[in-house]
């Protein structure tokens, strides 16, 4: 059979194959592209052109106009040529599309997104949709910079930038998405975060533990690149929440009634155990009795030798101001009371706090009254002082008059007689009385001492007091009272039982969670380690059976929605291209190759005579047909980047081969042989290639072979 090609037809055949492949690729990928772009257009109409917009800004609906104006300003002043568009408003939130002009699609721009848009009115956040891109979720901060550089170096990547906890990798073309994301995945797999978590209540030195574990791993695995990355801010929101929970718990703990337990000898208390007390009720607990209302149940929270602490989980000691000291009994499961375990001291901090506040309030109210009374008293004192001074002055005048009078009496001698003596006696007595009334009647010279009184300085000190009282009055005691009342009222209205339940709830939650400071994160590089295998080793090394070991990745590749959509579209395109490749190859086989096959078959039979059916089926022309079909289909399939799901190139090759074989078997049906003419050509001494070019192909079906032959055909 091959000799048929020797004298030159092989060249025609090779050209035919090349042109077939070329046209086939153009046909299948071109048509597929047309279909693809049709659907793509539809998608784009819905969510903007691929790569047209970079950011969706979520803006409160009522602020939309203002936001649009601000965005227009931003685009005018900072990014001339930027695209702005308004799309759907969902649930009171408007979505505005913003697209940077090409020259601004830089790492700087994207890294600075928060500062670019922070002035947009009503902004509720934004989503980066720049395309084509790959989204990597939850990139661990310890590797962020390193990964950013590595990703930027990947072929097909423009640059990478951080978007919150995520990282976005911008691509040159959507076609690179697959290869780049594969490479990114590979890069991510090079790192692992080995996380150690400790249940609540473990006060661990994270630095020390990290150090120990690094030592252990370096020893066991010989891994060099292990780094402690515990302090990295990871999951900020969660951390904040957990911190709040921890604070809440410690607040509740300090707010709860204090429970101190003194166990009697031979009783060993354990954490979590429950103990029954009489509480404020009047039913004493007895062994084997049932729990009764009013009794208090305490849970042991920590044990130190014979002493333990606990908290109330059932019942209340609300109105107990003093420390209670009662007998405690074990609480068995099922509500039955067990053995006596010792003395339990209960102290209601909360009630004491409330009591203190109430006392303070009372004090404040009295202080106010006191101030009013004091100022009244001072005012009175002032009035008395005035009266006193006046009286003193009148006394002085009187004294002088008296003196003059008495002098007058004595100088007059006997001129006045007994009347004068009487007056003189009266005045003296009066003066004595006066002096006594003013000074308490101490002495003769009391009037002098009265005169010596420093009324002015007394006045001054009185006015000082007045001032101070005024100041006290100026203090807005009412406001203070209101504040203190507010504080009192805003104190949680919780009883011990509720506090206990809350603490237990927080503990259950925190127990399974990462708590800042109780988590150690190690970055392990180039090492695939098995957490299950490692956990016992680490527990042993740390001498802590509660340490939990987890392995997490440093990021997850997450194709964004539209890339995904377009990838699906791409897949459809590839599938269509694949089908078109098959259709095309079938057509080519029928139009072009059937002619060659039937000629080859005729030449062969004519020379060797007809064969049996079996021999017919295993002739080399069928092999040649299979080969032709395979080469054509596989080449077109691969070059047009076709991809039919579940069909690898090998399967495609087999399909092509089967198509070729089938066409060979039915070649004459598709391309009837003009045997007389071929025979004439042979008889006239034409070569096989001449027979093909001048006799067979010119009358074959119109196709590539026929068309290409026009260049060679001479008649």
């Amino acid at each position: 059979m091959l000799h048929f090609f020797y004298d030159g037809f092989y060249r025609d055949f090779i050209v035919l194959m090349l042109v077939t492949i070329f046209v086939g690729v153009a046909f299948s990928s071109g048509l597929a592209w047309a279909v693809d772009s049709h659907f793509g257009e539809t998608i784009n109409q819905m969510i903007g052109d691929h790569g047209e917009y970079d950011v969706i800004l979520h803006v409160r609906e009522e602020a939309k106009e203002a936001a649009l104006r601000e965005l227009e300003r931003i685009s005018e002043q900072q990014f001339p040529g930027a695209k702005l568009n308004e799309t759907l408003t969902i649930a009171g939130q408007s979505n505005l599309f913003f697209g940077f002009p090409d020259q601004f699609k830089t790492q700087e721009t994207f890294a600075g997104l928060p500062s670019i848009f922070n002035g947009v009115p009503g902004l509720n956040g934004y989503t980066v949709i720049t395309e084509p891109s790959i989204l990597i979720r939850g990139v661990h901060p310890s590797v962020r910079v390193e990964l950013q550089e590595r990703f930027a170096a990947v072929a097909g990547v423009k640059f990478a930038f951080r978007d919150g906890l995520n990282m976005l990798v911008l691509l040159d073309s959507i076609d690179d998405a697959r290869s780049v994301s594969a490479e990114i995945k590979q890069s991510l797999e090079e790192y692992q975060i080995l996380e150690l978590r400790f249940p609540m209540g473990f006060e661990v030195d994270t630095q020390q533990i990290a150090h120990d574990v690094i030592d252990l791993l370096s020893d066991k695995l010989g891994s060099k690149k292990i780094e402690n990355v515990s302090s990295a801010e990871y999951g900020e929101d969660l951390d904040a929440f957990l911190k709040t929970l921890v604070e809440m718990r410690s607040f509740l703990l300090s707010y709860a009634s204090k429970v101190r337990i003194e166990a009697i000898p031979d009783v060993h208390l354990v954490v979590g155990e429950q103990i029954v007390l009489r509480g404020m009720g009047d039913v004493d607990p007895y062994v084997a009795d049932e729990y009764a209302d009013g009794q208090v149940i305490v849970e042991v929270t920590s044990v130190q030798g014979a002493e333990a602490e606990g908290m109330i989980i059932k019942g209340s000691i609300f109105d107990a101001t003093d420390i209670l000291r009662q007998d405690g009994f074990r609480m068995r499961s099922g509500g039955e009371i067990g053995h006596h375990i010792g003395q339990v001291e209960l102290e209601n901090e909360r009630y004491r706090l409330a009591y203190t506040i109430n006392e303070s309030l009372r004090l404040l109210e009295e202080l106010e009254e006191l101030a009013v009374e004091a100022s009244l008293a001072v005012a009175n004192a002032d009035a008395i002082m005035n009266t006193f001074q006046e009286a003193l002055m009148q006394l002085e005048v009187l004294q002088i008059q008296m003196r003059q009078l008495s002098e007058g009496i004595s100088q007059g001698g006997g001129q006045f007689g007994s009347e004068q003596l009487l007056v003189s006696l009266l005045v003296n007595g009066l003066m004595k009385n006066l002096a006594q009334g003013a000074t308490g009647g101490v002495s003769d010279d009391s009037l002098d001492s009265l005169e010596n009184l420093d009324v002015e300085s007394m006045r001054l000190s009185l006015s000082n007091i007045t001032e101070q009282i005024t100041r006290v009055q100026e203090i807005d005691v009412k406001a203070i009272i209101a504040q203190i009342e507010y504080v009192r009222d805003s104190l949680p209205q919780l009883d011990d039982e509720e506090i206990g339940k809350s603490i237990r709830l927080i503990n259950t939650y925190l127990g399974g969670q990462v708590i800042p400071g109780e988590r150690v994160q190690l970055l392990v590089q180039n090492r695939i380690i098995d957490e299950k295998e490692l956990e016992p080793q680490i527990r042993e090394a740390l001498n802590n059976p509660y340490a939990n070991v987890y392995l997490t990745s440093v990021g997850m590749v997450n194709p964004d929605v539209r890339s995904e959509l377009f990838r699906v579209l791409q897949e459809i395109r590839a599938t269509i291209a694949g089908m078109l490749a098959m259709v095309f190859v079938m057509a080519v086989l029928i139009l072009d190759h059937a002619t060659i096959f039937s000629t080859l078959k005729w030449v062969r039979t004519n020379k060797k005579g007809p064969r049996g059916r079996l021999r017919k089926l295993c002739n080399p022309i069928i092999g040649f047909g299979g080969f032709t079909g395979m080469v054509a289909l596989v080449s077109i399939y691969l070059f047009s980047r076709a991809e039919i799901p579940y069909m690898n190139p090998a399967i495609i090759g087999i399909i092509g081969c089967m198509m070729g074989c089938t066409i060979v078997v039915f070649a004459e049906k598709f391309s009837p042989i003009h045997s007389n003419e071929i025979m004439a050509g042979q008889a006239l001494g034409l070569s096989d290639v001449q027979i093909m070019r001048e006799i067979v192909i010119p009358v074959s079906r119109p196709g590539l072979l026929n068309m290409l032959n026009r260049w060679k055909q001479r008649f």
Partner: protein
Amino acid sequence: MLEIRNLTKHYGKQIALNGFALSVKRGETVVIMGPSGCGKSTAIRCINRLTEPDSGDITLDQRPVLTLSSKELRELRRNVGFVFQQFNLITRLSVLDNVMFHLVLAGTPKKIAEQRAWAALDKVGMGYHGHKLPVNLSGGEQQRVGIARALVSNPQLMLWDEPTASLDPILVGEVLEVMEELVRTTQTTMLIVTHEVSFARKVADRIVLMDAGRIVEEGPPQLVFENPRSEIGKKYKRLIAS
């Protein structure tokens, strides 16, 4: 010039040639006759290897035919004219092109080829039909074009495979006339398969009678037709007598 020895050819189980042997001298006109299916066509086609015999030996001008390379074979074929029963013209080509195209493809300049083609067409009386397409010609005309085509390369040997068998009786004459003329005027060696007994008697130097893939009788026409020894010969004699 042509020596054929012990040629055999099987088509599956069917034997087409069974020890066929023939020797032809330069310039000789040999007519092969025999019943249909006796292997005449097969024999004649083996000479220019349109059919490959299973075994045997053919030499043409002392050159072994069956071992020629394909290039040598093509050369040989150009020197051996072949006229088919079905004319085997290239239907898409004009009469002129049919006659000259193989000359051009073999390297003859187009002008010269054309001149020779016109001359050959003139010789068979088809000079006025050069630009027609074969479908527009009668069977006889087509066969004359076929003859011109074989003639144009001045072959040393012409093989005729029942050239008139598919023609209307009316048209047979014109072809036979051309053939007679050729035999008379050229020195070309002729090997003619035909059922035309009177034509054979007229032109043949020798008659070869075949049956079942082998030669059963041969000799000058008078001898073979007057005094046949074989069954086939006797049948032909009866045919002539009637």
